[in-house]
């Protein structure tokens, strides 16, 4: 596997692939 799942989802969403909305959090205050 070359990229992480969230990165794959970002890429595939640009190709008409339906993806659940989500985002990356680095600390609990900035979710």
């Amino acid at each position, binding site marked *: 596997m070359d990229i992480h*799942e969230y990165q*794959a989802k970002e*890429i*595939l969403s640009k190709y008409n692939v339906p993806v*659940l909305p989500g985002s990356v*959090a*680095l*600390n609990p*205050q900035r*979710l």
Partner: protein
Amino acid sequence: MKKVEDAAEKLLGSKLVTIQTGSQGKLIEKLYIESGCDIEREIYLAFVMDRAKQRISIVASAEGGMTIEELAVEKPDAIKKVEIDPVVGLTGFQARDLVFALDIPSECIKDGVKMLMGLYKAMVSLDANMIEINPLVIPQIKNCTL
């Protein structure tokens, strides 16, 4: 929201130990937070580079959830394969045929075909070796999602 914060507080900075990380574990630095959905069914779907046949193939199974390796041994018939001619590309016919073979609900057929076409385009234009979606989820509100 409070629940998510509490869970994030616990996870971030802690060590995650899985089969892949080994016994030492890995430090959790980032969390991916996603909205949930109610799952109706799970499907396995992958675009792979078939080196022997020198073309891209789709490997799919209506029986998701299980590991594909186990399924290949126990129920080889449950795995569908579609070979894509590199000159022609993925045809609408092949995409529809696969969507039907996977028993995807009628409300999702159009979305399913659109998604397969998109994945093929992604595979070719990104020069990818593999795109694996496991599981591909059919939610209870019927529009297909990963």
